[in-house]
């Protein structure tokens, strides 16, 4: 019985010949992403902007306009009301909540909760609402979370740079980082372009995309390193051969990872959807960039056999091989 194969095992697709095309296309996609982020910006969720968000479930589908007027009449102006998931669920967002202070001396520091207040306003006797979840976040905390996201990004970039430079060589590290950043920019750009909500879990998704994308690139680079040591061929051919050899693995792994993330997207419910979406796009882009971008970049940086050889330790290891 012949094994199933996505690609014939001796595939020799000339990826490197079209390296300029792929680099230009990748750069274009990236600039679209950057452009979207610069002009449209993100639709940041409550996590980052601060404010009040209340998820309500009604007994039957409510009239959104009616809810809006009721809230305005009760003094909640600029309330955003949108349907959420099924028709009976509503999301109410309010900005600039009044600050509440627990004074340590005031005897009755009692403060009502906005969520319950809103619930009372929107409920009617024949269609009562239930508070499914609520969040009240100060803008300060939001800013800190955003800042932490940036720190995490920097930590990952420097971590990658150091580890790959140590295990491979600086050209590999630079090429891998650029490839990964490209993927992150594209995923983030997608969220800016579509205006899909960007919340904490999306940020987590984007960071895990970095892990995924670097994983893919490293596998290709690992083969490049092995082939540089074992093959007598110019870098151009070594790189092309390496991409082809790992092609089957790259596509299969990505397909499986995509399937799992799709399960999250389909069955995980509203709060996981953003995260799954960022990962689905990240997996597609990460796979493509590890095939089309990473090695051309490496070529562009002028990688050669000598870059990997000087270490005496490695030569000794090579000599031991059969």
């Amino acid at each position, binding site marked *: 019985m012949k*094994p199933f194969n996505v690609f014939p*095992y001796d595939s020799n697709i000339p990826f490197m010949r079209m390296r300029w095309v792929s680099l230009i296309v990748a750069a274009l996609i990236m600039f679209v992403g950057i452009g979207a982020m610069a002009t449209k910006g993100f639709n940041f969720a409550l996590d980052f902007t601060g404010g009040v968000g209340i998820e309500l479930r009604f007994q039957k589908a409510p009239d959104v306009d009616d809810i809006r007027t009721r809230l305005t009449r009760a003094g909640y102006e600029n309330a955003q009301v949108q349907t959420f998931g099924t028709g009976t669920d509503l999301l109410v967002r309010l900005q600039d909540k009044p*600050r*509440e*202070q*627990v004074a*340590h*001396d*005031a*005897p*009755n*520091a*009692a*403060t009502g*909760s906005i*969520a*319950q207040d809103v619930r009372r306003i929107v409920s009617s006797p024949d269609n009562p609402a239930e508070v*499914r*979840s*609520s*969040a*009240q*976040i*100060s803008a*300060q*905390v939001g800013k800190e979370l955003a800042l932490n996201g940036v720190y*995490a*990004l920097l*930590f*990952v970039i420097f*971590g990658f740079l150091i*580890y*790959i430079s140590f295990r491979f060589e600086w050209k590999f590290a630079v090429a891998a980082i650029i490839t990964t950043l490209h993927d992150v920019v594209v995923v983030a750009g997608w969220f800016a372009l579509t205006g899909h909500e960007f919340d*904490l*879990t999306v940020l*987590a998704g984007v960071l*895990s995309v970095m*892990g*995924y994308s*670097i*994983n893919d690139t*490293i*596998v290709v680079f*690992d083969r490049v390193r092995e082939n540089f040591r074992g093959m007598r061929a110019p870098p151009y051919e070594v790189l092309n051969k390496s991409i082809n050899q790992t092609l089957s693995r790259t596509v*299969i*792994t990505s397909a*499986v*990872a*995509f*399937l*799992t*993330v799709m*399960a*999250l997207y389909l*069955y*995980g419910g509203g*709060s*996981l959807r953003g*995260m799954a979406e960022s*990962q689905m796009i990240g997996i597609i882009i990460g796979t493509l960039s590890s095939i089309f971008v990473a090695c051309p970049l490496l070529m562009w940086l002028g990688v050669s056999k000598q870059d990997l050889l000087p270490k005496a330790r490695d030569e000794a290891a090579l000599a031991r091989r059969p």
Partner: protein
Amino acid sequence: MLEYARWKYIVILLVLALSAVYALPNLFPQDPSVQVTANRGSTVDDALRKRIDATLKQINVAPKAVEISKDGNLLVRLRDPNVQIRTADAIRDTLGSDYVVALNLASTVPDWLRRIGAGPMLLGLDLQGGVHFLMQVDQQAALAKRFEATAEDVRVLLRENRVAYTAVERRPDNAIVTTLATNADPAKARDLIAKNLPTLLVEDADVPNQIVLRVPQAELNRVATEAIEQNVSTLRNRINELGVAEPIIQRQGTDRVVVQLPGVQDTAQAKRILGATATLEFRGVYEGGDIQDALTTGNVPPDARLFYTRGGPDARPSPVLLKKRVIVSGEQLVGAQSTRSPDDGSPAVSIQLNGPGGQRMFDYSSENVNKGLAVVYIERIPEVKLVDGKEVRSTRVKEEVISIANIREALGKNFQTSGLDSPKDAADLALLLRAGALAAPMEFVDERTVGPSLGAENVDRGLTAVLYAFGFTLVFFLFYYRMFGLITCIALLMNLLMVVAVMSILGATLTLPGLAGIALTVGMSVDANVLINERIREELRAGMPPLGAIKEGYERAAGTIADANITAMLAGVALFAFGTGPVKGFAVALIVGILTSMYTAVSVSRGIATLMYGKRRKLKTLAV
């Protein structure tokens, strides 16, 4: 012939067995239950159980079990989560304030598992429902209080030593500026301060009759840290009152406190309790009154009041008569630390009052040497009750005598109360004295609630997603790699088991993103197996005999797997270090998953492959 060391098989079996045992507790469902804890002085016994049984019968609730646990709590296990709140309310009404009644999810994990430290993963608020508060402590207010106290110290010192001054004020740059009268001797003032207030740094000012004093940074840091710790302990005291089974109260960063209350839905009620105020009063013990008379007839002398001491696990509250006049109240208390008495070495608490408080204490104590001095703890707890469907707000005031000591000499603003039973008693008293009030005002900066129905739905969705993620992967592998697909599937299943076991052992909190993380590790961990299987195929194509191909495949892929996974893990570590709440749960699942998948893919699947093919020398083809 393929070889795989016997000890490695033993390790695999051992890991498998341990994982199974430690993952097992997660299969036991939790009973919705109501937990009753004895308050000061009351006991949990069979009489209580009978009262509760009667109450349950009254409201027509058939409990699964009513048991008294080893730590002295009574647990009413219920069959249906929907009656939980109703049952708790009914029991609370019957028992009154002698017991704390809390909602709880009781574990049904058998004892033998618990004895070896196996327990289920904790569920995050997003899976369980509850309230999350992030509170910001106003450090500036705490520091301002401290500066005011220090300035007052300086004033008293100068006054007592007859050094004339015109002002002692705090400057915005955190210095205390003392302006002396023109006829005063600055050198004398400086000496006095250096001798009596050694913690202050004395600096020269530009103006000749001014002295600039600075509180050292270390002292400021200590004040800030103490303020937040005091707030945490105050909150803990109050949450106990609220009746929450497993609250989380943690300090976050330098000036924040996280409070998580599983099962609580009414944020308004929770906020009222957290914002409740408590204070202290020092009162003289009334002598000459007849306490029995006061108890039986209610005849209390006109300038006295009847109080009760705080009971403990082995002490019932006892009545005591105290003077009506308050000597010093909590606002005048600056600090309290447990210490040892310099006279006899017995455990003691040293108390610092501010200037006016010290003066009043001195006036009272110098006239009442050898008489009793009591500390009364007063808490105002705002309450909301539903009466005929309407909210009725009221404030319950709780007053308890927490200590009575004898005045041995005239007391100033720094004094000690000694002769306590143990250092722990001293520490407790100091904590109570301090925990009476919040050290600094707090602001709610972040507040999230998750309803119980959403929590249950999230669990459902998360599990479904993991299940499908797993299903897709297994089917794909069986189809694509056939025999080696089966091996991969076994390795993946073991990986899942290990992730759950490790997370349970670590006591990690499972959140919805955490479940997503587990699903994602499935997707990511297949990478290692794909690398191996593809490598084996490649070696076969290159003309290797099957057994050699298996060996080469595993060995050559190992290095790649390590490189690829370590870099992916860096991203996980970053998420853990900089993420908060649910995102942290995602990071934990990801990191654990990557580590275990490296083991199962490289070691376990190789073991199985060797077991299957190792002895078959004449193997012609591989189903890979």
